[in-house]
């Protein structure tokens, strides 16, 4: 458990920028950051700030960023060759159960699920990725799940693409048929609770990845607590029951 890094941050350069519709971008970096799917890194832009992000991929390290504020906007403006700094990886990861996995992502909740999909596909497992967003141009990482050979289901609140409604509606039948061995979800908290509670009723294993405003990222400051849990150290991945 003890960690003694020589330096907190490691410098990377952006090698490629993949646009993610109106939502943001994916930044592919020039080095690896070995991590378990679901773990996160603290991303530092000198003079601008430092925030937690899930790893979309660990080799090469890749970040998918939704533009929501000044810091994420600055990240979205990075070009190939630009530098950024990472420390981590931190926190707990997803645990793959069985061989058939249902991934349920809302908005940028798709990001940690993409690394999970990569690991599961590398083991030859079946993966269905259900991605939800408000509108078609806010969907993220569909290309990535397709490239990994996942079956992709899409739901939008305005019906602009895929199922018209919530992503939980879209996967309800799969859950009721008990298709998956395990369910993995990340996204807005009401969605997480809805998914976790439905999966609990069906009686399948469920993991959720939580998001909280975070400062230290290393289990010291306590700013990312939910109840007596710390998202940075006990999470960000929790068993579904813990969020009910």
């Amino acid at each position, binding site marked *: *458990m*003890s*960690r*003694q*890094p*020589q*330096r*907190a*941050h490691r*410098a990377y350069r952006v090698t490629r920028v993949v646009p993610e519709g109106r939502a943001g971008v994916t930044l592919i970096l020039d080095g690896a950051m070995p991590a378990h799917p679901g773990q996160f890194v*603290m991303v*530092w832009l*000198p*003079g601008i*700030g*430092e*925030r937690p992000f899930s790893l979309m991929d660990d080799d090469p390290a890749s970040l998918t960023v939704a533009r929501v504020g000044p810091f994420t906007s600055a990240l979205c403006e990075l070009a190939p060759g630009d*530098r950024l*700094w990472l*420390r981590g990886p931190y926190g707990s990861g997803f645990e793959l159960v069985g061989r058939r996995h249902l991934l349920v992502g809302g908005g940028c909740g798709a990001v940690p699920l993409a690394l999970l999909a990569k690991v599961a596909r590398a083991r030859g497992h079946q993966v269905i990725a259900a991605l939800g967003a408000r509108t078609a141009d806010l969907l993220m990482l569909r290309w990535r799940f397709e490239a990994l050979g996942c079956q992709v289901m899409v739901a939008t609140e305005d019906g602009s693409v895929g199922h018209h409604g919530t992503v939980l509606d879209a996967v309800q039948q799969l859950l009721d048929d008990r298709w998956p061995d395990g369910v993995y979800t990340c996204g807005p908290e009401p969605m997480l609770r809805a998914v976790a509670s439905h999966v609990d009723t069906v009686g399948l294993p469920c993991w959720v990845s939580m998001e909280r405003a975070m*400062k*230290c*990222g*290393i*289990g*010291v*400051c*306590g*700013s990312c*607590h939910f*109840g*007596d849990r*710390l998202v940075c*150290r006990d999470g960000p991945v929790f068993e579904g029951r813990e969020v009910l």
Partner: protein
Amino acid sequence: MGWWPLPTRKGCTTTWQAAARVSLIDLSADLCGVRLRNPLVLASGIWGCCAETLVRAARAGAGAVTAKSCSLEPRKGHPNPTVLDWGGGLINAVGLANPGAAEERDILRAARQALEPLGVPLIASVFGHSPNEFCQAVRLVAQAEPDFIELNISCPNVESEFGRPFALDPEAAARVTEAVRGVYSGRLLVKLSPNTPDIVDVARAVAAAGADGLTAVNTLGPGMIIDVRARRPVLANLVGGISGAALRPVAVRCVYEITRAVDIPVIGTGGVLSGEDAMEMIMAGATAVGIGSAVHIHGEGAFARILAELKELMQEEGYRSLGQFRGCAHV
């Protein structure tokens, strides 16, 4: 705790006998008349921003817990990066982020209610720009009836805004203590800074002004970490307080000097990561031992681990209570 002879089988010591001997070791401490089941005190600023995590620290084995410092008005604190593990410890400039004394009072009330059945005392922590502001915050926080109020006069991370910490000057430190003493009759601790050549003078002044106990020490520095590729300091505040392993020898020296000079009890805080470190701090004269950076290194298991190591070491060295070696290093 009484002692009773153990039945022995000839020539062999069973594990339960060894376990029974360990259980004869009394880890309790008396801090200003309050019994701590063990000497480990969760230090201020670690996990202390909500009732639930304070209670979790207590369940994980802390003998007492300290809430995060609060001021009269809410504060956002410094932007990130605020905390780093630089290899030899932590450096932090959280900047005293807190929800303000009124909301802190509610957090403390909830914490106290949950801590009472566990027998774990609660220490509130307060800071301010002026003696008057300290008093106003203390009045609010006191309504939650914490077992102690600790005055944080020593944060090194807000100097640009607050000016020189009160803890660097015996007179200023005494002024704050005396002012608060005038409005608060409960147990009062004052947290001292290692960043002064006169810590003993500050301790004496604060004790004379009415402090019941001291917490020694706050973080060291401030220090700075520069990222050579970014070509600038990493902390958004540029500088921050050093804690963890790098702080321990300084903290031990401070506790040693203070406890030789004043009679009031001291919570020895700074880089205690193991049972041996805890014993060292008590031998330096500490009544209780603060735990901060260890929570980063060992997670919530820090308390159980340090206590188990301390117990084992006490057994090895033939001690049955903390009093048998408290301050014994004074020469």
